[in-house]
Each structure stands twice: as C-alpha cells, then as structure tokens.
C-alpha cells in the first residue's frame, strides 16, 4: 500500500520539480539574506525591532550576523561619522561576494540634519548602495519592505554572472 500519494496532474505526472540554475541559486540567496549587525545611531533601534519577534526578520531568512564574512547585506543604520568612514569601507571589503548594501534613514542617505564637519554626507560616498530607505528613523515595516525589494532585486539578477569589479563607489 502506497504511503505517499503522487499527484499525476502536476509536474507532468512525475514526482520531480524542474527549475533553472539561476532560479534555484537566486531562491537560495534571496531567502537567506544575512545582514551584518551595523547599528550606528537611533536607526539601530528600529533595526533591532525589525529583528525581534513582532516584525521577525527570521521568516525572511534575514539573520543578523556579527561578522562581515558571514553577511550578505550591510544595513547602514544611522549617522556615519568621518572618523568611522574608514571602518565601514574596511568591513564592506571584508564581506564576501555577492553583497548588497541598504542605506537606512536620512543620515545614512544624505547626512540628514547633520550638515556638519564631522558627518559623512551620505554613505554612498564611501560604499556602493543598492537601496535607500527614507525616514528618520524608518519604521520596521519600511525596513521589512526594503528587504523584500532587495529579495526581488536578487531574483531578477543572473546568478552566475561573471563578477565584475565594483566601481569605486
């Protein structure tokens, strides 16, 4: 007696699923976007809230990692000071390809209200950014939506493309 019923109306009657290499690689990548813990200022509170149980990033496969070598996405959450710019670049360089960057909040996007000598006027002066989130600070929903957009972006990319050297910034 058969323990498992096979649905012959699907998948051409075969108990297999067909896909492409691109699709399965991007499926894996987009559903395990591990984020680097990168809280710099008050946006970090919202980032922490996004990771906690109410908004629950784990269900997207986004798990915060404390090491750049295990991370796929860097969420720049907060004000980037000029003193720190050197270190954000170093951590970005230590992340393994493929890697993405989400710039979270006004300060990381443009320097925000800190139009001063000590603040980097947008983290895209130092590292290449994929997604900019507006808000001061953005709600956890916004960050969630950004991760969903990033997943869509990853799924659109070709998985096995030759890795071009990234432009300077």
């Amino acid at each position, binding site marked *: 007696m058969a323990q498992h019923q096979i649905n012959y109306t699907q998948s051409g009657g075969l108990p297999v699923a067909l896909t492409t290499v691109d699709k399965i690689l991007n499926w894996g990548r987009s559903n395990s976007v591990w984020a680097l813990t990168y809280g710099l200022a008050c946006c970090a509170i919202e980032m922490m809230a996004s990771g906690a149980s109410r908004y629950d990033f784990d269900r997207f496969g986004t798990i915060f990692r404390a090491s750049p070598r295990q991370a796929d996405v860097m969420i720049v959450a907060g004000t980037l000071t000029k003193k720190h710019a050197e270190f954000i670049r170093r951590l970005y360089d230590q992340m393994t390809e493929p890697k993405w960057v989400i710039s979270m909040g006004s300060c990381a996007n443009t320097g925000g209200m800190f139009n001063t*000598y000590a603040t980097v006027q947008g983290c895209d*002066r130092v590292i290449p950014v994929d997604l900019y989130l507006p808000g001061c600070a953005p709600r956890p929903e916004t960050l969630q939506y950004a991760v969903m957009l990033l997943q869509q972006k990853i799924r659109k990319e070709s998985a096995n493309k030759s890795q071009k050297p990234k432009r300077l910034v």
Partner: protein
Amino acid sequence: MMRPYTPKDNVQAKAYYTDRFWVAPKIPEEAVPEEGLYAEDLAAVKAKCKVLNAYIQRGQLVIYINPEDNITALKTLIEERWYEMLSEMSAVDFLAERGGFEIFYQILNLNTARRIRVKCFVDEHQAIESVNPLYRSADWAEREMWDLLGVKVNNHPYLKRLIMPDDWEGHPLRKTYPLEGDEFAQWYEVDKIFGKEARDIIGPENRDPARVDRYDTERFARLGHEVPKGAPAEELKKIEEEGVVTPVHYQEEEGVFLVEKFNKAPKVLDKRK
C-alpha cells in the same frame, strides 16, 4: 511690595528682527564677603599666589589667577581647603576679542558642598601646565580641550586627540572653524580611503539640502511607487500623474520551488461551534 513694571509688548515678534548673536546680559558679580568659608578659601589662595580678581557669581566663588599659577592655586585648594573634585574644566574661545582662551576649572568640596571656579587666560600659542597629577578627571578633559580648541597642555601623560580622528587638521570648536568644515574636513573620508586622485570621480559633497539633482528620481522613489533604475521620463511621469502603485509582491504568490503557500481559509469557521 510690588515688582517694578517692565513693558512686555512686542515680546513675540522681537525674536524675528533681533540679532541672532545677541550677547547675554552679564550675571551680576558680588564682592566676596569678609567672613565665611569663601573668604577663607580666597585668603588661602592669596597667601600662595597672585589673585587678579575674585567675586561671587550665583553664590559661587570665582577666582582669576595667572596661568602659571594654576598648579599652585589648585594644590592649595585641595590640600588646605579640601576641594578634591574637578567637576569640569575646559576653555572658552576669546580669540577674536582678546586673542586667547579663558580656561576654567570648576572644583567641588564634597564636605561643605561648595564650588569654586578658578579661571585663567592664555594666549593663542601659550601652553598651560597639566593638572592631571592633582585631578584624574583632568586627563580626558585636557585631551578634549587640546582636540577641539587647540590649547596646548604641558606634561600631560598622553596628549592625543580625544574626539576627532588622530590625523585631523584643525580644532573644530574654535569660533573661526566653519560648521560645514574646511577643505580638509570635507574631503577627509575620500582622501583617506581612496586617495586624493579619487576626488574627481566622487565629486564634492552636497551640502545644500534644497538642491534638486538630476538623479533624484532614479535614486529615490516614494514607497509603493518604486521605479527601476534609469527608468525613462515617460514612465516617471505616468507614475506621478496616474498614481500607479508598485504592487507589493510576495514570492509565494507565483508559487516557489519547494515552498507551499500557506492557506488558512479552510480553517476559518463561519460561526461558533
């Protein structure tokens, strides 16, 4: 007894046309009383070094001394009068008015809860002796004073910048330092990470919050109205005029390899059992 009447008309509107750099009225200075703890404190300092000026302000004794006497005066106040705690010390920029800095030491006697402010004036390039051997809290305070105002401190154990990076040029808390930074500050991170030759590629900072950039619509979009990077102008216009909303798209909707969409509909009851 009635308070003297001061006319208060035009108080609200006055803020709009008065000088932004309005000088605050001076807090009244009273003479040091003949007797009491402060008189004894002042006498103890006067016995050891020259006092230029002394008065009571907001109930606290202020003593002006020469900058060479700062160790002598503070040591006397610690050993003879038990002012053992340095609450705060820093300098005030008077370069434009008097060509120097006014250094103040706010000290506290924990037994009598009395405070004294010891002040001295140094010229722009004049160094002052470190009070770190007397007060441990002066360590970082003097480093901060050097970092942000550029007042040199002699015989400090580790005089290094406290807040700004070590290779910074200039002292940002001076009144002559521009808020948006000088050329060094504006290119600091670019020069340090990529080198000076990358300045042309990266371009100057956008310090104008009202500037509209050609790339704004490509790089920023309203939530729910996202457009792909480099979208043609017609597409942007269509989105603006017709309010086309980018649908929130869940990957489960199309059906994903190995993922079964969760369907809770069969479990919802129409009525209570």
